[in-house]
């Protein structure tokens, strides 16, 4: 019943246009006001808006949660990277010596704290030598340098099971030049993580 009025009006418009021989059609008469349909339409729109608002709010909440999580992961990552950086700080040695130097004790103490704060962490210490001296002896010297750092940590309570060692002798120089500065850089222990390094906690106060 509600459809018949506009439909018959439309037919009338077409007939008039035809009768006038192609002239511009007169504007269609406004549809008759039907309060029921207006109410229904408004109700429908309101409902959609409410639904959208609810979805928006949910989405915003979800995004906020995600962002918070991301921030938190980023924080953990940053923390882990910072700790890893401290852990990987090298120590250096005097020519043909394997004793830990006084000035390197604080570097090793930092590693000590990290190993204590992260009980699942295992590391490898790799000793290196400069190019002087016998190629073969330098393998033993590198091993001795790695053992010196390992022993420092063991003496302060870290289990030896958590620290493996090896030596690369003079075969992997950091600085390929042949001068005092390069040699000093190349006489070193490197520290790397072998297990338990995905998430690292900084020791308190670091």
């Amino acid at each position, binding site marked *: 019943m509600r459809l018949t009025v506009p439909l018959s009006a439309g037919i009338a418009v077409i007939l008039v246009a035809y009768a006038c021989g192609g002239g511009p059609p007169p504007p269609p008469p406004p549809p008759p006001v039907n309060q029921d349909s207006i109410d229904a339409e408004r109700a429908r729109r309101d409902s959609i808006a409410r639904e959208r608002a609810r979805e928006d709010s949910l989405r915003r909440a979800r995004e906020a949660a995600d962002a918070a999580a991301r921030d938190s992961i980023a924080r953990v990552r940053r923390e882990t990277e910072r700790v890893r950086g401290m852990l990987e700080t090298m120590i250096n040695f005097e020519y*043909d010596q394997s004793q830990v130097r006084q000035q390197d004790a604080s570097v090793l103490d930092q590693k000590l704290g990290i190993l204590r704060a992260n009980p699942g962490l295992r590391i490898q210490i790799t000793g290196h030598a400069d190019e*002087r*001296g*016998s*190629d*073969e*002896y330098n*393998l*033993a*010297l590198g*091993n*001795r340098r790695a*053992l010196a750092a*390992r022993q420092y940590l063991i003496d302060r309570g870290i289990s*030896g099971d958590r620290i493996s*060692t*090896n*030596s*690369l*002798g003079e*075969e992997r120089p950091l600085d390929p030049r042949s001068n005092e500065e390069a040699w000093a850089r190349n006489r070193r222990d490197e520290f790397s993580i072998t297990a338990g390094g995905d998430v690292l906690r900084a020791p308190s106060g670091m």
Partner: protein
Amino acid sequence: MMRLLGTIVGLLAFAATAAVGQDTTVVEQGVRVGITYTPGVRPGLLVLGGERVTVLDSVRAMVARDLEYSDEFEIIALPMGDSMSLRIAREPGDGESAPYVNYPLYAALGADYAVDVYPDAVDGTPTVSMFNVGASARQREIRVDVTSPGDPEFRLAVHRAADELVRSVTGQLGVAASRLLFVNRGRVYRVDSDGAEVRPISEEGVQAMSPSWAPDGRRMIYMEFPSSLYEHVIATGRRTLVPVTSEAQNFTPVYAPDGETIAFSRATNEGTDVYTYNLAAQCCLQRLTVGRLYDNLSPTFSPDGRRIAFISNRPGLTQVYVMGADGTGQELFAPFEWGVTGSSNAPEWSPDGRYITFHREVERSPQIFVMDVATQTVRQLTSAGRNYDPTWAPDNRHVAFVSERTGSRQVWIIDIETGRVRQLTRLGEARLPSWSPRITAPIN
């Protein structure tokens, strides 16, 4: 004849005396007046000219070089034209006196010996003869048993002939028919004793260190960086992990004279120590040293297999020690002055057991030393540049070592009796040499 005599007088004017015991970087080309052979004075040797045929020219050039490198002779160098005019006449129709060997002329040139290279009269095989000028007699004739320069065994065959020529004069075989291993940019190479035939041996892409020959000259043992030892058969290229070296860090492997046992260094949480292992029986890993606070490494067997020299830093700096092959009786071997003598490394026992060569820091620069085992006295052989990682030739007279005297690491050879040196390798770098035993049969 006048022209030749003029040349001879000119050459004699430049006569050089042999340097004794000094490391000279220039191979002397001097000419001496003829002197009969006495110990310490090298007899003059003339390599005669002859037919210019490819194979004969190759043999002549190689033999001349091998005899020069033997350091047993004073090679008499003549201008090419004069050398050619000294060829021995052996044309048909020369009659009963052919071949005519002009001993008086060679003697006038200062030669105690003359070497001739020629085709055998019957089958044309390249043949070499050593003539004793003083005795006016042929000392030795040797046929080169590989006749084609393209044959992979040709060079070794010529080297063996040259070694026999040396023996005909000195009683000791030369060492031309031997090879050296060395490491170039992480790869083991081999090279003939005259510097020819440089060939890679170990695989590409793995870093090798410390190659060392088996006594049979057919195998080597080396370390694959950073930790395991491999035995490698030269002819087939087959390499096998030494089973006990898949754990810990193992390096500086050497064979015992029996070719079955090996000794090596092993780095652990207790430091570095010397171990032995029976490779043939795959058993009996034995730890010979217990360092704990100091390191023991770089073992080398005495030729009777009963003792092992090694280095230890128990006196502070590394010095050369010796022990029984079972680890008993460890004691200081090469004397040193505490607080004065620099560290000593890389010892190798000579094949005759009489000497140990090693390198020792002198004013922070490593130099090659030789210790007389019987008297335990040491002698410094080198002084030019940094020189290290020495290895004995099978004649107990030559030592190959790494030298940086030209700016890069290269293998050089020194004659410990005259101090003459020559450069063996000319590559990007060459280090950790090991000199083979004499190669008596084809190995590849």
